[in-house]
């Protein structure tokens, strides 16, 4: 029995050791799997993961060897006063072996918290969060260099420390104008994809290619004329023979010619895009309802059975008549406006849609739309749905995009290159100009100051002198596009020196026709 006592514990001890070893192995396998799964998802919001609040940001999610999965973003865009205002965005991520990338642009409003998670059918494979206090609304100043680190201190000293300098790599640069919405400047030393350079310039960034023309590769050299500066969309591309630090300072100083087009769009939205249906006057309602009530009572009182029958018929006809007379056309009522800033052959277009519903409804908008005012909504890659109370409207903005410029400014001459007439032509500081028929060219001349359409009412005061404002499509299609262009000397700076770039007109500067 004593031997038995000795043997049994030893056997148990061996068994327990085996169990422990297996448990350790299983733990290692599980940990390894979890670790691999964690690394199987890459999430980036903003260029180089730098989010700009109040601007369109690039969202890129990479999955590696994952089955079909779903990305969910949950934002709380509420305030202390309003409480939680949830925004839920859901995107399907394609699965399969290898790397799958999903890219889109999101308008990121000021938020209190942002959380995201990627789920497969079985489990959550990755998640993360971002607190509102960790975010920044300042625009980005990107520097792409292939020759060592960026001298941040030099640049910060030169621009006063207000710059949000971000060093990027080639893979960080997106190729859509919307992704560059929150970028103020881009300095490139060495080579860079032309698509990204053009997209950044179109979106409104001041792009500087450092190192002079000799350092540029073929497509980049073709982008910029001999003058050294090309205006493209809302921004410009300049070639400067300077070291990267000085080029970055020049790029930051040369940004912001007209102000951000996205902010100017808000000025256009000061007036509602859709009007509520006209209501019948209360006097007519009073007279009609009193007449009906009196008729019904008289018929009941004096008519007996025929009177009751007659009052029922009167009720039916009155209800039908009231329905026909008072029923407004079926909603939703939709209006649209776009603001496009022209520079060279391209323009960046910021669009807004307003939809008014009369009953309480879930208003649907195209994918990518984001409400102008902070409110709860949900979105996917197919559409955006905004729950809306009765008799309320929702205004959304769409991701900015590059379009062909419909007009060309050459000196003091403006030419309409589009197939539609340009109406309401006005130059700030110079006055109203005649409408431009397709193909027509006019020379700008002093006109009546202040004589511009109501659509420009909040816009014109926000523009520097020497800005041409024109619109198209307002009367016929009901989808107004307001075109902005810089005219005169501001349109094509001849100088290529950094001082000249920095001295380009700003919203607060006086223009060629300033008093």
């Amino acid at each position, binding site marked *: 029995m004593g031997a038995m006592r000795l043997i049994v514990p030893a056997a148990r001890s061996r068994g327990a050791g085996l169990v422990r070893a297996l448990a350790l192995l299983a733990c290692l396998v599980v940990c390894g799997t979890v670790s691999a799964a964690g690394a199987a998802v890459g999430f980036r919001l903003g260029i180089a993961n730098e989010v700009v609040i109040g601007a369109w940001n690039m969202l890129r999610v990479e999955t590696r060897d994952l089955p079909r999965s779903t990305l969910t973003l949950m934002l709380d865009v509420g305030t202390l006063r309003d409480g939680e205002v949830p925004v839920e965005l859901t995107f399907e991520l394609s699965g399969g072996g290898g790397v799958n990338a999903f890219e889109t642009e999101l308008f990121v409003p000021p938020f209190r918290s942002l959380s995201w998670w990627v789920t497969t059918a079985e489990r959550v494979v990755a998640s993360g969060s971002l607190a509102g206090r960790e975010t920044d609304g300042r625009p980005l100043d990107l520097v792409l260099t292939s020759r060592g680190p960026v001298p941040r201190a030099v640049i910060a000293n030169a621009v006063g420390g207000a710059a949000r300098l971000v060093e990027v790599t080639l893979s960080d640069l997106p190729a859509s104008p919307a992704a560059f919405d929150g970028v103020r400047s881009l300095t490139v030393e060495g080579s860079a994809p032309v698509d990204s350079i053009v997209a950044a310039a179109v979106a409104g960034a001041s792009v500087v290619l450092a190192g002079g023309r000799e350092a540029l590769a073929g497509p980049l050299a073709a982008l910029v004329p001999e003058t050294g500066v090309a205006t493209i969309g809302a921004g410009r591309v300049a070639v400067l023979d300077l070291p990267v630090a000085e080029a970055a300072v020049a790029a930051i100083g040369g940004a912001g010619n007209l102000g951000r087009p996205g902010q100017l769009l808000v000025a256009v939205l000061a007036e509602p895009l859709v009007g509520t249906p006209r209501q019948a006057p209360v006097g007519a309602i009073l007279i009609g309802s009193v007449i009906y009530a009196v008729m019904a009572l008289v018929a*009941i009182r004096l008519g007996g059975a025929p009177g009751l029958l007659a009052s029922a018929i009167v009720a039916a006809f009155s209800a039908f008549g009231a329905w026909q007379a008072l029923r407004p056309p079926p*909603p939703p009522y939709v209006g649209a406006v776009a603001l496009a800033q022209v520079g060279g052959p391209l323009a960046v277009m910021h669009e807004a849609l307003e939809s008014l519903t009369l009953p309480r409804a879930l208003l649907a908008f195209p994918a990518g739309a984001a409400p102008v005012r902070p409110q709860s909504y949900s979105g996917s890659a197919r559409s955006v749905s905004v729950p809306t109370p009765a008799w309320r409207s929702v205004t959304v903005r769409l991701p900015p995009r590059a379009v062909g410029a419909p007009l060309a400014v050459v000196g003091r001459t403006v030419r309409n290159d589009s197939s539609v007439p340009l109406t309401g032509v006005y130059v700030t500081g110079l006055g109203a100009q005649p409408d431009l028929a397709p193909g027509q060219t006019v020379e700008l001349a002093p006109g009546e100051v202040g004589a511009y359409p109501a659509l420009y009412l909040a816009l014109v005061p926000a523009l520097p002198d020497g800005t041409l404002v024109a619109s198209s499509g307002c009367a016929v299609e009901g989808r107004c596009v307001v075109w902005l262009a810089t005219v005169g000397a501001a349109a094509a700076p001849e100088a290529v020196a950094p001082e000249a770039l920095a001295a380009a007109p700003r919203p607060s500067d006086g223009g060629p026709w300033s008093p």
Partner: protein
Amino acid sequence: MVAVRALATVAGRLQRADLLQVTALTFAVLVVALNVNWPDGGARVNEAWGPVAALRNSLLAVLALAYAVSIWGRVAPGRLAEARVTFLALVAVAVLTWPFEVAARAASYPAVPGYWPALVAFATLGAYFGLGLLVGRALRGPYSGVLTFIAVPAALALIVWLDVGVGGGHLNPWSVPSAVSLTYLAWSSPFALVCAFLLARPKRRPSVAAGGDAR
């Protein structure tokens, strides 16, 4: 002929002073509600339907409850016939007040489907008339006339209290038109069935002991 005779009976009931005055008062209340809530002076939002529909449904509920308690609480011959014709007269009032609701609905564009207010008006009439018959039966006796004045508001207050207890918006006639509620139909159906059962049964011969209808 039966239909014409029934119509004449209902018309006769509506011509009687009590119901005629109540109908006129109902019309006046709805005219005021419609015009007070109609947007004017640059207002963009028309939300007239909400108060008009709620008021109409509540008035129908109060009238049904009050008339049913008052008639069924009495110890008098001809109670059943009186209840029947009064109920039909109230149905006529519901039909005649419908244009106010339609006018408000046309301009307000509420999210509630159009069938619901129409359905709920008759469900309310049936349910509250049935409830009133039960309350009237319980009060029947020498003091039923006095107790009616207490029982009607008490019953309404009890319903509102119960409605608040279950979350609100499902039982009381004021809030029911604004949203489709199966709870309301489920709650009102038994009382509507009671109403149908009591009003549709054949008249019994007058008994010497009761001096009229047996119950």
